[in-house]
């Protein structure tokens, strides 16, 4: 998803009258206003308001506000609550992204071959793209819930211990994302020119060597893209925690977003806004990584 050379640009075309240019500009404004108005009203204006709210404290009714300055942002973002949320997000990321990418690679390489009935397996592997976060959480409720789950006695999935609880939650995310991961890696595999594979066969590469030396490097950009997508997903984790652990035990599965939703009342709004800014910076960093990855991909491709 990179900017393309504008093939329809007709700035330099001769014979375009001034009135025509004005007409085109007017039409463009009319066509862009609906989308841009929504973006301004629900993306940029609220972002700016976040800065405002993070600098003020409100009274209990939310009717008046008092300037408290940047200290509120600093105190919130260095406070124990935000640090715990950040830690949970980072752990969750570590638990979901590498396993997710590896499993996707495993599923896609296995299903990328010429076999009778392979379509059935491909459909099964991609099926979880239809699952919502909430559905996947309910599905894993039947497995990991401490009273009703099939694995309720498995200690490394126990919901009453911080790490195992987060791991149990992360399984539901890994499972839900497998469909997307599979679909993306499979498309990546199928974009590898067959001549390259055939040449490596002729060169006497063993299947494993071919996989490690040819397939994985050529898939590199796709896998990086996937890692970024899954990372963004990890920073948005919320529903699976709410349904499976309620954030517990002792806040051990409360992500930053989870904590933000608890700070929506007037009294805490300044802190909630500060945390939202923190989340904005974090996702901004991921987005920057995404951009540099995508730019590298373009050089690869061309």
């Amino acid at each position, binding site marked *: 998803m990179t900017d393309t050379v504008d093939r329809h640009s007709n700035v330099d075309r001769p014979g375009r009258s001034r009135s025509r240019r004005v007409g085109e500009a007017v039409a463009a404004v009319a066509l862009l206003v609906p989308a841009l108005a929504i973006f301004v009203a629900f993306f940029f204006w609220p972002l700016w308001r976040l800065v405002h709210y993070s600098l003020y404290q409100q009274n209990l009714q939310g009717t008046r506000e008092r300037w408290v300055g940047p200290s509120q942002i600093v105190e919130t973002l260095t406070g124990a609550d935000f640090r715990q949320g950040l830690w949970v997000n980072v752990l969750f990321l570590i638990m979901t992204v590498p396993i997710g990418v590896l499993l996707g690679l495993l599923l896609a390489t296995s299903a990328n071959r010429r076999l009778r009935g392979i379509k059935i397996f491909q459909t099964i592997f991609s099926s979880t793209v239809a699952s*919502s976060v909430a559905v996947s959480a309910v*599905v894993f409720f039947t497995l990991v819930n401490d009273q009703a789950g099939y694995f309720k006695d498995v200690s490394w999935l126990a919901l009453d211990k911080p790490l195992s609880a987060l791991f149990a939650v992360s399984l539901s995310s890994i499972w839900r994302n497998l469909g997307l991961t599979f679909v993306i890696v499979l498309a990546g595999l199928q974009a590898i020119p067959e001549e390259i594979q055939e040449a490596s066969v002729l060169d006497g590469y063993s299947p494993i060597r071919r996989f490690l030396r040819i397939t994985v490097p050529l898939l590199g950009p796709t896998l990086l893209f996937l890692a970024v997508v899954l990372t963004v997903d990890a920073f948005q984790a919320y529903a699976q925690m709410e349904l499976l652990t309620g954030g517990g035990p002792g806040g051990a599965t409360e992500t930053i977003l989870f904590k933000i939703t608890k700070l929506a009342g007037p009294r805490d709004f300044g802190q909630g806004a500060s945390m939202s800014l923190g989340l904005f910076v974090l996702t901004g960093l991921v987005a920057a990584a995404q951009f540099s990855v995508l730019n590298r991909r373009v050089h*690869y491709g061309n």
Partner: protein
Amino acid sequence: MATETIETSDSIRDRSSGRRGATGRRTTVPHGLRGANLAWYVVLTLLSMVIVFPLWMTLVRAISNPTKVLLAPEPSLLPVDIQWNAFTQAFTEGGLGRPLLFSLLLTVVIVSAQLFTSLIAAYAFAFLEFPFKRLMFGIVVATLLLPVEVTLLTNIKTFQNLGWISPNQDFGGAFGSLTLPFTAAAVGIFLIRQGFLGLPRDLRDAAELDGYGHLKFLFKIAVPVTRPIIASFVLISFLGTYNQYVWPRQAVQNDQYNTIQLTLRAVAGQRLDQLNLPFAAALIASVPVLALLLIFQRQLISGLTAGAVKG
């Protein structure tokens, strides 16, 4: 990139019609083919278990007698005292019908709105010249990088100030706050613009000579020609909207206007001997999107992979 996106979807189609995975195995190891194939079937079946097992357990628990499941000394892989009525009870006792319809309504409205705003904006970016074009496109791309979660609190505040989000919100308030923020989508503008950029440069000039105005050209020529890309966008938009959780969770404060996803919250609060209902509800909630996936698999996949793979 525009043309590449199309090529990607085409290449998926080409290969799925028979050329896929011709890694040379067939020509180089004809004798081992049988055994190798069998081994791959075993591997594929085992891997399928990773996906299917959690779903199987959900189905098992939905159709089992919940009390007997709790009393059983060992958790069972098979249904205990099968009773199918959980699926009907989810509607009668769980009241699933209303949220299901409400979710479908919201999804249709949002997807239609997104499609319309994306089409006209994509047309402007692809075919028109105007000042600050790059800047405006930058604004659109920027929203791609800003997850709704970041501005969750302030958007809630906006709607609270409007009186649309409150414990006694009415249908209009719930409907408005659930749809309005999502009536435009940067992904749609981006994808459809790429589709339009893949059209021949002179197509619009020719249409213009024939007296086509902007809208007539857009809906009579550009849209039909880029139908595959538009279909992909509609599908991923439907999927994302129907499956939304975080925003509806905050925006719906009157339980009457729960979306289908929000009703699944019941699993955490339900009495243990009634847990079969939310399990059935989760399966029912998946039916519309699963149906879409099965019917439009190819278009959906090309939408999901656009941008991920350069063809």
